[in-house]
């Protein structure tokens, strides 16, 4: 019996939307309990996130970070690997960016420096993923365990380097010197001003262009190259991959290198684009949020960009909520949690009912069905 077919857009558009709607309903109940009008809360969040160029700038700045960490998780996932180490890989990426900007900044023009810092961010992130990848590929150590441990090692290493190496003499705070201004990635509002567009100041910088390019690049890499093919074959059916002569170890290492590289790019946005210095815990959980982003975005770059926008909205809009209503900042974490719960953990909950509804009311048999039957 052939399975009746439900078109892809049901899975890509309808089900995620329904899940988000359910999460919003649950969040609404929460606000109602806190004596906040849920509609007002939504309006506040929406205004805070999209209402003006300031809010929008912040939203897109967060979105940029999530695109990088989300893509990182997705590429590894296509190879059947759960890379929990985005946090550490992004942190080490910051080290690469920091070294490039502190040594070359002010000495060479940005146009020359930028490719170097991009390579450094990616290479350092990839390098940090390489050891867990190698251990998984050739020693059978589980990647989840090793990448988590490497997050802690990254954190300890960066703490040590910041105190012992990067902290300018005499400074009391644990952070590196500010990079020379010429090495900063330009802010979008500054670029807009050049063409006469007046935007409010926000941390949004041109890294977002690189993030979108990366998303396109990931699409082509995963679905349009033989390496992507091998990664997906390995992830979906390692027995078949072996049969096909695909070297499992090499493929695992390749997928993790690309994944670590994407996580490392995170530092372009947050360090070279906004903070302009290496700070303690600058990743601040965004590496982990990348898991939720990838999950929501169904590991597809397009979905990841959308999911990143949603999480950017939650971050920025949630901050606004806290500001307006004085709610506990942890409520925002609860909001994010609800979104993850409904669109991640309970993803299958709505799948069958929606499939059934579709088949019952909208399905028309097509010629392919007839040919098969």
């Amino acid at each position, binding site marked *: *019996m052939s399975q*009746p077919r439900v078109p892809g857009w049901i899975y890509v558009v309808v089900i995620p939307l329904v899940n988000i709607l359910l999460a919003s309903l649950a969040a609404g109940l929460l606000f109602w309990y806190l004596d906040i009008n849920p509609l007002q809360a939504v309006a506040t969040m929406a205004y805070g996130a999209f209402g003006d160029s300031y809010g929008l700038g912040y939203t897109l700045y967060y979105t940029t970070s999530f695109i990088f960490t989300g893509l990182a998780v997705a590429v590894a996932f296509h190879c059947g690997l759960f890379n929990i180490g985005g946090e550490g890989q992004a942190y080490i990426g910051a080290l690469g960016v920091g070294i490039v900007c502190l040594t070359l900044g002010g000495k060479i023009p940005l146009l020359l420096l930028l490719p170097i810092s991009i390579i450094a961010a990616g290479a350092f992130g990839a390098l940090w993923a390489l050891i867990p990848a190698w251990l998984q590929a050739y020693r059978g150590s589980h990647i989840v365990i090793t990448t988590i441990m490497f997050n802690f090692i990254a954190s300890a290493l960066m703490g040590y380097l910041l105190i012992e190496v990067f902290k300018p003499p005499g400074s009391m705070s644990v952070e590196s010197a500010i990079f020379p201004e010429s090495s900063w990635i330009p802010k979008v509002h500054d670029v807009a001003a050049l063409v006469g567009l007046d935007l409010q100041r926000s941390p949004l910088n041109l890294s977002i262009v690189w993030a979108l390019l990366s998303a396109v690049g990931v699409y082509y890499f995963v679905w349009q190259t033989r390496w992507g093919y091998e990664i997906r074959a390995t992830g979906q059916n390692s027995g078949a991959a072996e049969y*096909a*002569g695909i070297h499992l170890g090499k493929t695992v290492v390749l997928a993790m290198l690309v994944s670590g590289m994407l996580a490392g790019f995170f530092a372009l946005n947050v360090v070279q684009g906004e903070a302009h210095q290496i700070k303690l815990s600058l990743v601040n959980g965004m590496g982990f949020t990348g898991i939720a982003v990838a999950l929501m975005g169904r590991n597809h770059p397009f979905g990841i960009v959308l999911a990143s926008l949603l999480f950017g909205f939650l971050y920025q809009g949630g901050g606004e909520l806290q500001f307006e209503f004085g709610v506990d900042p942890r409520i925002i974490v609860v909001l994010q949690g609800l979104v993850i719960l409904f669109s991640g953990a309970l993803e299958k909950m709505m799948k069958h009912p929606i499939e059934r509804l579709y088949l019952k009311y909208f*399905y*028309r048999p097509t010629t392919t069905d007839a040919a*098969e039957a």
Partner: protein
Amino acid sequence: MTAQTDVAAQMAIELRGIDKRFGPVHANKYIDLKVEQGTIHGIVGENGAGKSTLMSIIYGFYEADEGDILIDGQVTKISDSKIAIASGIGMVHQHFMLIQNMTALENVVLGAERGIMLNDSMKHAREVLERLSKEYSLEVPLDTPVEQLSVGLQQRIEILKALYRGAKILILDEPTGVLTPQETEHLFKVLASLKEQGTTVIMITHKLQEIMAATDNVSVMRRGEMVAHVKTSETSREQLAELMVGRKVLLRVEKGEAAPKDALLEVSNLSWTAPDGVLKLDDVNLNVRAGEIVGIAGVSGNGQSELLDVLSGIKQVQKGEVKVNGHVIDKSHPLTPSEVRAIKVGHIPEDRHRMGLVNSFAADEAFILGYHRLPQYNGKVFSLRNEITKDCAEKMEKWDVRPQDPNLKTANFSGGNQQKLVIAREMEQDPDVLLVGQPTRGVDIGAIESIHNRIIDMRDAGKAVLLVSVELEEIMSLADRILVMFDGKVVGEVPASVANEQILGLMMANIVPDEVKALQKEAQA
């Protein structure tokens, strides 16, 4: 009126107008079925004929859209499997529902505990099981974890599970798929003794031979419809096959004489030990000449899979030597699967789901598996997706893979069409040596015919074909020479002209009959 009830009372189960649709798919079309009390009733049909749906309705997994189920003459609404069990229906699924690290006893008790404390349930279960297993020769070691038991024993546990729950009607879904011929024979004995005690057995299968051997009545399904009910004694395999497929089917493969030439594949003294230390291949010697099919018979798990894996480069040669077309593969000259493909060896793997295909891939992606690095599919950086799709579409048409949609997910093809896709992929590369494992496992009768013909065509085109199958009939009808494997060794060789089920059956149990010994001596002399 009374007479009518009497007739109904003799029926263990009766279906009246059972109808079930899944969206546009009409899986069961107004099915009527009567299963007499105390008989073994076979239900046959191709994959997708609706057998499993029908049984799922009886067992309460699905509810019928229309129609009634009568159990012992009473209309019973079976809305979930608990009601089915309470009505005396037991089901043994094709894929066993056992917890691997629990013992047989624990598995039987699971879900049928008599109270909070397990001790009492276990004691009771042990008594009942000991009685049942004696009565029906269903002996099972009760205290061994299931994972250490053979599939045959695991199946017995499933049957015991159903009987323990008071099953009067036992449904078996493809019960012999994983069994050795001996285990199958034993199963049929068990079923016969169950029948004697008044249990009704419904057996779903696509193996006609077994229907003929074990059942009293048989119902045939085709495309969701019940097309015939017949007494087994009044029908034949040919008639059943025709009813199943809807047209005449050749059960015997028609092929001419083989014209073998030089050996293309030579295996000498090949041994292979699994990582857990078990010797899986023990000094195997064989050769396959151009223009012949050499069959490897044997109970599944006697080294056939490892032989194919080693020959195709998935596993490395540890001891001995493989010569393909003049290329030597041994421990110091290992070849990867892609290198083996490059020296013109095709491999149709035994298990298309585990090896041959990636279910989530589109058909065209699955179609290049193993050949995905060939220049015709790749640019410098990007794959030539249009070329791949075009190529796949052409080959799908040529090999009659349906539906002819290269973008359709592999998982959405029927088993036969998936297998055709694999076979098309491997044969289209025009290999000199073709390794074939279980070519028709889970494939419809209609497709089997065409797959067999393709294999014969390869032979006639002067290729060397090595065929591994656990279906004796398939081996006997396709192979020109038959080797039997047991415990990693080649027990002996029989020309197809001499082979029959008795001889091969004995050899599969590591006994070489005298007539074969004589033949071998003759050959040596």
